[in-house]
């Protein structure tokens, strides 16, 4: 009954990076850890914003700040962006054309949510989720087997889901035409293209970037995806089919068996 007693559960949502960030922690932890998590997210927003003229990214773009003068976090993100560009055969990029200003937004949100999860874990949270506008890090969940049951939004039947997954200690990101993601561009003109791309893996930063790259690539499940161990993808193609990598099977919840009077 002390003033700083751990609380459970904690469910909060705050507006950061122009979207809603929901944090749910089902373990009893100090609420101050959730404050710290949102402070971190707001710092990331202020540092990486492409809209705020005073952000490090904006100053870097204008040449007012040298790369060596940026925060270690900025350099870390830009380095990882460069690696991801190479590993995705150029489909993930921080510049839509060589003349464009750099924009690492395709990695920043997911990367910052990974760190948010670390803040919560260090405070003792094991059963939690962090949801930044539909890009999610799942710890252990409340369901049987310690899972979170996660729906993948259907790309054009908005009241429906394209797939249902059970996730624990995994990250999931989805890119689609419906989102406001102005960091997505390109797409191959040949073939039906994609309506959405979902990636599940150990880290959300990479999953987010891969979903963006898959969507920009548009060819389905390209071979460059094989370079990312532990990451699996599910795509909805323009001809309204779902395709997924073999490793995605472990996450999918099968449709219920047909009703049986003797069913358990």
């Amino acid at each position, binding site marked *: 009954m002390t003033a700083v007693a751990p609380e459970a559960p904690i469910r909060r949502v705050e507006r950061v990076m122009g979207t809603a960030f929901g944090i749910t922690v089902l373990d009893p932890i100090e609420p101050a850890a959730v404050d710290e998590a949102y402070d971190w997210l707001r710092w990331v927003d202020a540092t990486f914003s492409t809209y705020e003229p005073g952000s490090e990214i904006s100053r870097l773009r204008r040449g007012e700040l040298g790369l060596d003068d940026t925060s270690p976090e900025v350099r870390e993100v830009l380095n990882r962006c460069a690696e991801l560009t190479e590993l995705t055969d150029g489909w993930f990029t921080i510049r839509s054309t060589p003349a464009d200003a750099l924009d690492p937004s395709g990695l920043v949100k997911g990367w910052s949510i990974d760190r948010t999860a670390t803040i919560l874990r260090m405070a003792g949270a094991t059963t939690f989720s962090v949801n930044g506008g539909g890009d999610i890090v799942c710890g252990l969940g409340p*369901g049987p087997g310690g899972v979170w*049951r996660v729906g993948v939004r259907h790309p054009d039947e908005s009241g429906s*889901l394209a797939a249902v997954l059970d996730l624990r200690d995994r990250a999931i990101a989805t890119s689609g035409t419906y989102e406001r993601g102005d960091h997505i561009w390109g797409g191959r003109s040949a073939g039906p293209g994609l309506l959405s791309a*979902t990636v599940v893996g150990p880290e959300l930063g990479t999953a987010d970037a891969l979903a963006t790259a898959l969507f920009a690539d548009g060819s389905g499940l390209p*071979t460059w*995806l094989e370079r990312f161990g532990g990451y699996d993808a599910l795509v909805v193609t323009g001809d309204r089919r*779902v395709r997924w990598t073999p490793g995605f099977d472990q996450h*999918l919840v*099968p449709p*219920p068996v047909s009703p049986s009077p003797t069913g358990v």
Partner: protein
Amino acid sequence: MRRALPVLGLTAAGLSLVLRFHSSPATAHHVTAPIAAGLRPTTPLGPDGTAPTTAPPTTTGTVPGGSPAPSTTAPPASGAFKNGTFAGSAVDTRYGPVQVQVIVTGGRITDVQELQAPSDRNRSVEINSQAAPLLRDEVLTAQSATIDLVSGATVTWEGYQVSLQAALDAAKR
């Protein structure tokens, strides 16, 4: 400790190049299934009842002829919710506060209503008018599937979802 993780991630990616090279080209392994219009959470992938985990690799599904709507008749766990009206918390979104309430009759969620919705800007109206029916649809059909989170959700959806979750928590027995 955390700062080492990106390096580990890169190492893992490098290892995967080696470990996964024994497999055939990626496209040869991919399972394909049709996606039907109006699929519901309880039947995520196959209108023909094909479970994704049992679909044989390299199988191509047939074009869906029509989509079933089985969840409207699926019996929910009886008595999962208390009868009454339960308001969720108001959630501040980019487009304004969002708050919903659920109506439970006979232990079932029978309606989801907006108490607060963004409406003072054109963009808000546009997004909100799209999101609200979705949410209602999703809740009414997913109550036995218990979806905790939605990936690829819109901002407004997220706001609704958080408010909704609070309402559902309040309604639970």
